[in-house]
């Protein structure tokens, strides 16, 4: 039974200059304790997708489609449920730890406010739990940290605090939106391992958003690839790498530097630039940059279809790679 089931999600921003189709026809689901990776470049709609789930979109945004969380319509929560939903059932970790914390408030206050508001914990109980949380995210000297201000902590430590904040009320689902992009490379892995470990220990579902396929490789159960606001490919993680169907996913893989890549090999960036989201989707958004594109690709929307090898693996392309290529019958 899925914890979160998103179907045909579409988010359109009504700007003074016209509509912007940030997300179109995106579907995915997350089960209890499962880790889902959403991969795509900037502007692919991955952040907007999760922000819609968290109620963080502005009034100018129109949301279509459904998102069912634990039986509730996540977009139309009854008010008493809504009051204690965000930060309790679902929690989120943002990208930039340097700006995610209120600079004029102490760490302790920011850690405990959620607990005291949602679970009515007393000050002592909340403080105790806060220290526990800091231990869980492996920040040393927890008691001292509570009295400190964000600017006294390094970027990596701040991100741990942000994660601790998200865990404060034992959420069943944690959304991490590019949690390591703003961090040093050396720190990135620590944070990712931390998230991975937490997920397993707490049996917590995780949605990990990134532009880097390498990040989700060993840390997720499933991967969703987005581009231009649309779903390109979705499959269990291993399958994405063993039987890559979508040309975009293929390009993403090629641009991952790997320790085994021979020295001097050029990285293969994807030529071109992201699509204009102000145009209503009518064709494959990746077509202009795709090496295998044909006229068909620029005149019609490829539907989402499963591969012959696995019903669990779908792609949206007229000229897929891998096992689906044989079925499609064209290269």
């Amino acid at each position: 039974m899925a914890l979160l089931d998103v179907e045909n999600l579409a988010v359109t921003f009504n700007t003074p200059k016209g509509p912007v189709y940030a997300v179109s026809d995106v579907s995915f689901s997350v089960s209890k304790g499962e880790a889902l990776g959403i991969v795509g470049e900037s502007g692919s709609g991955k952040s907007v997708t999760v922000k819609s789930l968290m109620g963080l979109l502005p009034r100018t945004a129109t949301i279509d489609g459904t998102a069912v969380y634990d039986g509730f319509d996540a977009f139309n929560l009854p008010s008493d449920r809504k009051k204690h939903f965000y930060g309790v059932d679902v929690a989120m970790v943002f990208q930039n730890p340097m700006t995610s914390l209120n600079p004029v408030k102490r760490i302790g206050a920011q850690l405990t406010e959620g607990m005291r508001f949602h679970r009515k914990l007393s000050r002592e109980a909340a403080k105790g739990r806060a220290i526990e949380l800091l231990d869980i995210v492996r920040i040393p000297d927890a008691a001292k940290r509570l009295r400190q201000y964000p600017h006294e902590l390094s970027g990596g430590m701040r991100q741990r605090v942000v994660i601790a904040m998200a865990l404060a009320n034992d959420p069943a689902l944690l959304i991490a939106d590019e949690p390591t992009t703003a961090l040093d490379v050396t720190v990135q892995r620590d944070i990712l391992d931390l998230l991975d470990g937490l997920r397993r220990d707490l049996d917590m579902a995780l949605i990990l958003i990134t532009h880097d396929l390498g990040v989700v490789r060993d840390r997720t159960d499933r991967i969703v690839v987005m581009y231009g606001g649309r779903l390109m490919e979705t499959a269990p993680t291993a399958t994405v790498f063993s039987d890559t169907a979508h040309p975009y996913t293929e390009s993403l893989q090629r641009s991952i530097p790997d320790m085994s890549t021979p020295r001097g090999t050029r990285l293969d960036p994807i030529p071109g630039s992201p699509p204009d989201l102000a145009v209503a989707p009518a064709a494959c958004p990746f077509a202009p940059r795709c090496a295998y594109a044909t006229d068909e690709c620029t005149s019609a929307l490829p539907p989402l279809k499963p591969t012959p090898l696995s019903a669990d693996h779908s792609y949206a392309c007229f000229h897929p790679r891998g096992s689906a290529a044989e079925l499609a019958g064209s290269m």
Partner: protein
Amino acid sequence: MKVVAQRLGQMILVVLAVTFLAFAAMNLLGDPLFNILGPVAAAEEGDPNYSMVVEARETYHLDDPFVVRYGRWLGDVATGDFGRSFKNQQNVRTILADKLPVTVLLMVYAQVIAVVISVPWALWTASRAYRLGDKVSTVVSFGLLGIPVFALVVVLFWLFAVRWEIFPTRFDDADLGSRLWSLFLPAVALATPLIATYQRLLRTDLISTLQEDFIAVARAKGMSRWHVLFRHALRPSLFSMLTVFGIQTGALIGGSIVVEQYFGIPGIGRAVIEAIIRDDFPLVLAVVVVVSVIFVLVNFLVDLLYSYLDPRVSFDG
């Protein structure tokens, strides 16, 4: 600490310069002799009144060079002796002690009213930025800014004391309650331009703060709108308003002169204007000193408040 000392030193220098200017201005304004003695000052040698002239010259050291007189006056002030008013020889210090409290009360009252109204108003408009309520507020705010205090006092008085007899028409000194009640209209008159200024500044900073990530994070934690506005957005946004708060003390002093004159409040504002017209040096100078010191002190406190509000700013700036 070194910076603090330096800042203090700077401020003392400015206060000295201000007093020197005032001293110079007053001494150029006319013959102090005339102000003390009246027409008798014209008495020449041989005239029976001449002895009064000589005596006055001596008591007030009027024959000494200007700079010496300034120095002497400064020395007196440092020991708390502000001299005697030219009019009826009253001790200036007593006059100050008598009249200053009312003016200070009025100014504090006005600032309190201004803050109490402008902060919620700013929060409300910032959370609804660019929507109808905010647009209307912007117009109203702009209008309030442009109303001269002297016109405002007449309108307020007419509406609330004459037409609808809600407030008394004159200052009532009976007890604190009646003082506050009868000072309400004057305080509102003083507060109005402040309300508009503070609201505009705070709103701008709030809108800017509300776009920061940590606000989104707080909302993502499920904190209520109220909590996010008051307990996350407000504090980091107070700086511009705080700066102006200190500077406005100067404007308030000018405003209080008008308000006191109009409502007949026995404060220092009214006293000083009469003193200037009468060339009553000791009183005018004393007021200038006191006012400058108050101004300096308030700004110093504002600086202290900065470092409290933003832990990233240490007091040594």
